[in-house]
């Protein structure tokens, strides 16, 4: 089932027309440049075919006649050629690069837009690394192959046609003799190209294993040391690098065979020209200049063939990239608003906020059953009624269904059957964005974006003023520590927010949630231990942001649970006990047991 996320699949190499059609459709806005690049590549081929003819003119006309008065004309042709080639080279590189960079941009843009629309479930089953690879290496590789492949194929094709046509015009017999080696040349090129590419792919695979081993050697250093596994690890590693070495040498042998074998075939063609062309010169059928042209042309023949073989092989290789990119861009949205809802409430890009009702905050689960796609049933006939402004603490072991309930409220997932009502109306009858606009979410491990603290708090509501941001920070008790930073609110949080402590990051994420002023708040509490002062601050901040909102907490903190209006004890997707803290402690049932087992450690920490 994870097969689709394998990077290197060795599927058969048959052409997937549908995929390529889709990829080509992305290129439509670049039509103008495509036509231009084909034009320039053709001109370049013309220039390449024409070059030996200029020298032939010099040999046959000027040297043979010994007429120096024609030399200025010859120089003039050369100078013209110089400008012509330089101009074309500039034009085709520029155009090809333009296609490449813009195509990569288009692919990324489409993929990113899709990523914003895709429901949360997609992220649950798709590794982040997979998505990243599509956005970076695949989009780059594809656009590279498509733009430069286009140049290579056009140039190579035109060059071959040009060479053959001109050769036939110059001398039919000699042309036929030289062309006898052509099929061998083509066969050899394709034969080797395919194998060399495959050999290099094997090397890359092996290489990524070595990278993995390094990663493990570094990440697992402590364990390795304590178990004294250095030697046996080294032996494993040696096996990997040894295999890598053998693979690489094998590939090098293959690659080293390719060029000489082409060279060999070419030398036969050249020898044929030497002999038959020489005889023709002897018999004065052709001139010395023409012999030179044929020898040059034989030399010029390999380049386009090798290029064409190379492009072909790369196209085949790129198909896997293309398929993966298309699979992302065309992924199904399994959660989406119906057309009627879109009509009334608008879309992400064009929301019709004027039609949005105010949200009060009543949340009702009406016989909700939920099953993940993989099959396991998480909730069955779940019922819950929460009034606006109430707080609900969800407790239970991992896998009891806490996260699922929260995901359903957020409409990251939708019920398999049953309904979820917000203010008495099935939430599917309103838009996802209407719901999210009224929803706040505070994560277990707070996710901050790179940028400064101010920007991160503003993320909760993009039009918040600086004063509102400071106000929010004050309310959650973040203002004081922010002020101690040299740069205050302009302090960069750096990637992943590593410069701030976990507790500080949490407070910032609270401020972010507060500024959004949501009607419904989801709180996924952290289990990580923070120092006592921070712990107290966090508790206070939680109380502040919960005030007056409907709140669902996946709770780990004693204080949060104790203060909740309602506690739900979950097991296997069912509520096995519910009530207030005091009631349930008195009952000495599930909650009591869970409580005494699980929460006493936090008591120790906060002591």
């Amino acid at each position: 089932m994870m097969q689709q996320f394998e990077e290197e699949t060795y599927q058969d190499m048959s052409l997937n027309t549908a995929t390529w059609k889709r990829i080509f459709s992305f290129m439509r806005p670049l039509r103008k440049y495509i036509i231009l690049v084909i034009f320039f590549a053709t001109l370049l081929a013309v220039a390449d075919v024409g070059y030996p003819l200029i020298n032939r003119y010099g040999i046959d006309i000027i040297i043979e006649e010994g007429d120096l008065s024609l030399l200025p004309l010859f120089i003039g042709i050369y100078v013209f050629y110089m400008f012509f080639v330089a101009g074309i080279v500039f034009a085709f590189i520029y155009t090809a690069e333009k296609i490449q960079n813009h195509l990569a941009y288009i692919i990324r843009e489409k993929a990113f837009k899709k990523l914003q629309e895709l429901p949360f479930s997609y992220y649950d089953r798709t590794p982040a690394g997979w998505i990243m690879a599509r956005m970076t290496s695949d989009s780059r590789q594809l656009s590279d192959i498509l733009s430069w492949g286009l140049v290579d194929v056009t140039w190579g094709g035109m060059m071959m046609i040009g060479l053959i046509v001109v050769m036939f015009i110059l001398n039919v017999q000699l042309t036929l003799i030289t062309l006898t080696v052509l099929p061998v040349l083509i066969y050899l090129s394709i034969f080797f190209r395919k194998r060399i590419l495959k050999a290099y792919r094997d090397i890359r695979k092996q290489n990524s294993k070595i990278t993995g081993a390094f990663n493990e050697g570094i990440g697992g250093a402590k364990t390795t040391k304590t178990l004294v596994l250095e030697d046996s690890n080294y032996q494993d590693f040696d096996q990997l690098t040894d295999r890598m070495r053998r693979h690489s040498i094998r590939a090098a042998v293959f690659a080293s065979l390719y060029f000489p074998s082409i060279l060999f075939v070419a030398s036969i063609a050249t020898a044929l020209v030497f002999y038959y062309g020489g005889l023709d010169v002897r018999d004065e059928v052709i001139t010395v200049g023409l012999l030179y042209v044929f020898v040059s042309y034989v030399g010029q023949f390999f380049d386009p063939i090798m290029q064409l073989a190379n492009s072909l092989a790369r196209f085949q290789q790129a198909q896997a990239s293309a398929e993966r990119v298309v699979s992302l861009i065309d992924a199904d949205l399994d959660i989406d608003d119906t057309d009627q809802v879109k009509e009334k409430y608008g879309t992400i890009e064009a929301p019709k906020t004027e039609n949005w009702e105010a949200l009060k905050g009543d949340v009702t689960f009406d016989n909700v059953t939920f099953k993940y796609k993989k099959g396991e049933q998480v909730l069955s006939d779940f019922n819950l009624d929460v009034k606006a402004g109430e707080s609900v603490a969800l407790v239970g072991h991992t896998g009891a269904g806490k996260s699922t309930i929260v995901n359903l409220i957020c409409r990251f997932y939708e019920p398999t059957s049953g309904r979820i009502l917000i203010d008495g109306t099935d939430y599917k009858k309103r838009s996802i964005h209407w719901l999210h606009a009224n929803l706040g979410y505070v994560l277990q491990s707070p996710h901050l974006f790179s940028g400064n603290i101010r920007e991160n708090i503003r993320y909760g509501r993009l039009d918040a003023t600086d004063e509102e941001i400071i106000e929010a920070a004050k309310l959650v008790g973040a203002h004081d520590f922010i002020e101690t930073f040299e740069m205050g609110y302009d302090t960069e949080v750096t990637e992943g927010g590593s410069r701030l402590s976990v507790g500080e990051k949490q407070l910032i994420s609270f401020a972010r949630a507060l500024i959004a002023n949501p009607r419904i708040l989801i709180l996924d509490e952290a289990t990580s231990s923070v120092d006592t002062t921070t712990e107290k601050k966090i508790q206070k901040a939680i109380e502040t942001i919960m005030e007056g909102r409907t709140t669902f907490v996946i709770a780990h903190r004693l204080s949060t649970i104790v203060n909740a209006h309602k506690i739900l004890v979950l097991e296997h997707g069912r509520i096995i006990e519910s009530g207030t803290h005091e009631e349930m402690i008195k009952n000495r049932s599930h909650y009591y047991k869970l409580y005494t087992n699980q929460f006493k450690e936090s008591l120790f920490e906060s002591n």
Partner: protein
Amino acid sequence: MKRYRQFTKWMKGYIYLYVIGFFILMAVQYLRTLTPLFIQHIIDNIFGDEPSALPMFMQRMVQHDTIQGMLLLVAIVSILFTIVRLVFVFVGRVLVSLFTENVAYRMKNKLYRHLQNLSFNYHSKAETGDLIQRTTTDVETFRKFIGEQFTDVFRLFFLTAFAIMQMALMNVRMTFISLIMTPVVLTIATIYFNRVKKVFDRVEKAEGKMTTAVQENVTGTRVVKAFQNEKFEMDKFAATSERFRDESMHLSRLMAFFWSGTDFLIFFQYTLTASFGIYYTIQGALDPGQFIAFLALLGMIVWPLRQLGRIVGDFGKTSVALDRIDEIMAEPSEHEGDSDFKPQIDGHITFRNVGFQFDDDTKPLLKGISFDVEPGETLAVIGKTGSGKSTLMNLMVRLLENNEGEILFDGNDIKTINKRHLRKNVGIILQEPFLYSKTVFENIGIMKRGAKEESIFNAATIARVHEDILGFERGYETVVGERGVTLSGGQKQRVAIARMLLENKPVLIFDDSLSAVDTETDIQIRRALMHHWQNTTVFIITHRITTAMEADKIIVLEDGKIKAYGDHASLLKEGGLYASLYEQQTNLAENIRKEAV
């Protein structure tokens, strides 16, 4: 000189491969400059009366009475000559690749071995990403350099030298004329490739920014969606993506300028050579065949010049890569100068006034720690996060070295005992154990390769993880980390315990190693283990007072100092922190009621 040694020290032992390959490739370059001489021979010697530029031994091979015979011989000799040349090409390339791959192989192995031997302190400070970068990308940069660029420099050098030689043998004046533009092209190429590096850096930076934007968006999907900021994210991404595109286009423009500009200069050179060539040919100073040979030899010199400019630029890059690798190699191995003393360890451990502080820290992590544990006894250490519990354990296996007081194992100072020997005798089960990307079966048997299935299953059963493993789709053959297979924290901890059960160690340390397992299972496992390890000295680091209370001796640690030391009963009697914790953890209900009110 230092630079020179920096490059050659990795090549030791394989350099002979390179030297042989090098001479072969040099010969190849000579042969290559002969190819244009065949056509010269045909035109000037066979059809004219001029001297042939082919070397004498070849001229002798192509003698015949008739023109047809001569042409046939030239054709045959040119094929034979190509066969010799391509055998040389093949052998030379294979030798060079044998050399590079062996150098890279040894380099990676050395790095890996060295990294494993670097101190725990080094590893806890090092950034994994950066180390990986050095061990992979930097090694690859070096490999490419010696295999491709370094060889190319010499290849191009000899090709140029031989081509100039062949030209000079035909006509010295024409040779000078044909070389006029070469310094210009070479200089421009070198400058260009040096300058373009900066632009490259900018492109890479822009790409990095864009990648970060995607990464943050993907990992923060919940936040993005919950705050409904999809549109904002799209705009933010579009800006970075556009920036990347535009920086790339900037690079493209430079590229287009460079390649077309140098093409212009190269064709300018052709114009000069061809014009003068024709002039001299008509004057009689040059033969028509020589003129053609000149054009071909010129091509061999002038086109590769641009590559040379790139290689000069790459030289600096390789040097930086090697510096980064050398930095790792310069770190001392923790086993360097370690003693060979390997006494039998029975498990009598004494701490005398032990203290520890990092060199760059202002506050000691441990101070004045003293206790004594007899073989077979159990000592529990209880304390808050940051109280120094883990540091204490790290000292006992010399992952860190105490800088105050002494630690004695059966009367021997720990610093006199061989590190590996010590670690083989002291089993430590970490709170966050690392599982290798092997099968679960192999992970359990990792210290005892070839262990029987029975003993593995038995160990897993005692550690209460057997049932869990059987529940996996592929059971014991499940590969950890592959295809997203992840074990929960508790499962990992139990696998780590099972792993330890296969060996008998006189000393065992549980570093909070059942923290992710629920209390009931914790108790079950501990009971089973106590039974299994009756004669073992056991250290338990824990949060749970219920776990600690069963130990023979208990240490309460706070801020790196021993706050209380004794057994459960004496500590209770003493009152203080331990007693109040015990009170709270065992009489929760009452406390809670108080709190709730």
